[in-house]
């Protein structure tokens, strides 16, 4: 449990800094005054400007983290995660299609639906009973669906007007700007309910991690359990996308970072660690993206892209170096 105290400390620190830093810097005294009296610039920041944004980032990051961790445990591959396996590209395509054909639904809902559809498609296409290495096929098919969706998205982006295109681009990259307490509450409830669902399936997840043969030997109906777990993980990602947009690489990074920070071994502990790490990554990336350059607010998705791609490269040299040597 010593590791978890590090994670919690880091989370508290990032949350604290996120409230203080940004376009306007707050002093500790401002924040304290806002907290105790409910007046002054500190109160405004807490209640309206940065408070809901930080809360949304924390909860959405945790949902992304849980989702990625379940994917990685189920497919037994550190490179699996909904964001690299077509989910984000599907969400982006759905947003552009909705704008192109004038569909009047909340963008968040559309993004989540698009992601779900892409995930379903990946599942259907990669399902080949009795073939070896199904996890590998699933990851590759996910990549391919992602490529197709982003190709189509670029195509339809060309048919949009400039104003629509910039709106679409904001949704595709993923942004936490102007979140309200409604967003925070929505994702907290969704992540909470789905997290409980995961807790119920914990035994199945632990069995499946041992491999399908052993899991069956332990009395598990493998395919059904797998489908349920993957569905839960995909819904978690969809919930997070609905409030934060398809932010890349958070789900991919959270699992390994959580384990690295806490040294967790049990499935339950690893899921918790991944949730914490996901919250840490998303909140931290958001903080960086709005305080690194004065006067420029980059969308958080650009920052996680800049952080995530080198991470993926490092992971590639390490994870495979071990297997191959």
């Amino acid at each position, binding site marked *: 449990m010593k590791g978890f105290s590090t994670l919690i400390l880091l989370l508290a620190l990032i949350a604290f800094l996120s409230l203080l830093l940004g376009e306007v810097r707050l002093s500790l005294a401002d924040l304290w005054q806002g907290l105790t009296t409910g007046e002054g610039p500190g109160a405004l920041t807490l209640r309206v400007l940065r408070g809901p944004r930080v809360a949304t980032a924390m909860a959405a990051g945790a949902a992304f983290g849980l989702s990625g961790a379940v994917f990685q445990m189920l497919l037994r*591959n550190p*490179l699996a995660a909904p964001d*690299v396996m077509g989910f984000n590209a599907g969400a982006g395509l759905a947003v552009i299609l909705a704008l192109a054909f004038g569909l009047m639904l909340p963008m968040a809902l559309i993004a989540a639906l698009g992601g779900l559809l892409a995930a379903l498609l990946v599942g259907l*296409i*990669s399902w*080949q009973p009795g073939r*070896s*290495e199904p996890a*590998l*096929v699933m*990851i*590759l*098919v996910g*990549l*391919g*669906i992602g*490529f*197709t*969706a*982003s*190709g*189509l998205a*670029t*195509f339809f982006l*060309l*048919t949009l007007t400039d104003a629509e295109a910039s709106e679409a681009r904001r949704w595709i*990259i993923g942004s936490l700007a102007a979140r309200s307490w409604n967003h925070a509450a929505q994702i907290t409830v969704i992540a909470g309910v789905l997290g409980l669902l995961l807790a119920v399936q914990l035994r199945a997840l632990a069995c499946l991690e041992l491999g399908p043969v052993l899991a069956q030997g332990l009395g598990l109906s493998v395919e059904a359990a797998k489908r349920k777990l993957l569905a839960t993980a995909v819904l978690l990602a969809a919930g997070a996308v609905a409030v934060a947009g398809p932010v*890349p*690489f958070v789900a991919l990074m959270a699992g390994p970072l959580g384990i690295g920070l806490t040294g967790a071994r049990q499935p339950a502990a690893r899921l918790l660690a991944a949730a914490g790490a996901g919250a840490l990554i998303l909140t931290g990336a958001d903080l960086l993206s709005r305080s690194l*350059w004065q006067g*420029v607010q*980059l969308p958080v998705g*650009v920052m996680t*892209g*800049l952080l*995530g*791609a*080198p991470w*993926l*490269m490092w992971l*590639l*040299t390490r994870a*495979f*170096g071990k297997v*191959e*040597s």
Partner: protein
Amino acid sequence: MAVKLGLILLLFLLAVALTLGVGVQGLSWQAVRGAMGGYDPNDPLQVVLAEIRLPRLAAGLIAGGALGVAGSVMQALTRNPLADPGLLGVDAGAAFAVVLGALYLGQSDAGILAALAFPGAALAAMAVFLLGGGLSGEPGPIRLTLAGLAMSALLLSLVNGLILLRGDALEVFRFWIAGTLALGLQKPLLALAGVSLVGWWLALWIAPLLETLALGRGLARGLGTSPLKVQGAALLAITLLTGSAVAIAGPIAFLGLIVPPLARRLAGRNLRHELLAAPFIGASVLLFADALGRMILAPAEVRVGVMTAILGGPVFVWIARSLRLGEVR
């Protein structure tokens, strides 16, 4: 064999004819013949032909041919049917170098910008090859694809960041996000054709050595082939080919993925035969995609890079699904 050769040739000629004939301004066969008889600058049809369609055709032939060969060399080098210069981030590297040159070195000379594509392509090719496990001998398909994905994501994030910090960059960015054949006339076509021919010749020259290397590094060394030298030469060929294609047309993904299986089916398993067929098939596919892009939303034009991305994604899924992973890991 003769039938298959005839098929390649027929598709190629059809693609050429389609490129010359299709567009906002329809062109008849008479106009083409008239232009051949003697160029008349007062005839608008002949001007369209000489100033728009022919440069477009030349750009398509060079870029498509080069990318087809580059894809075949890449798949032979990595023994991975999912390898493609676009997917593996090589043309993102070239594009990034050119954008950097245009924005931050203040270069506007087309020749210098085109030359910048080569170091960019080379660096990205090497980085992805190393990250993908090229040196340890067996780059698995997932590792290599993800290494390319990571490289592209990184370069694209950097480009995104640059654009947000510099307002005037959007126009440059548009060209580099998806390739087009429309700007052939502004590019040093002859020089780039020469470079890609050198790349093709190099690829043909090392083809038997690549086949030896495919037997395994140990066996290749025993047969007197130096794996490092062959890999270096192959990367050089890929760089020359991809660099010239990107300099002409911008990034065009997936062409290197679609062409090699077609070439193998039509020309046989011998790598040299495959490499001889690849440029013709590559140019045909690219020109067909380009013609389709000009017809689908006419009179607007869809960039050919977008068309290949839409066509290529399903091909990727199909290949991934039919991979025999026991062989390639």
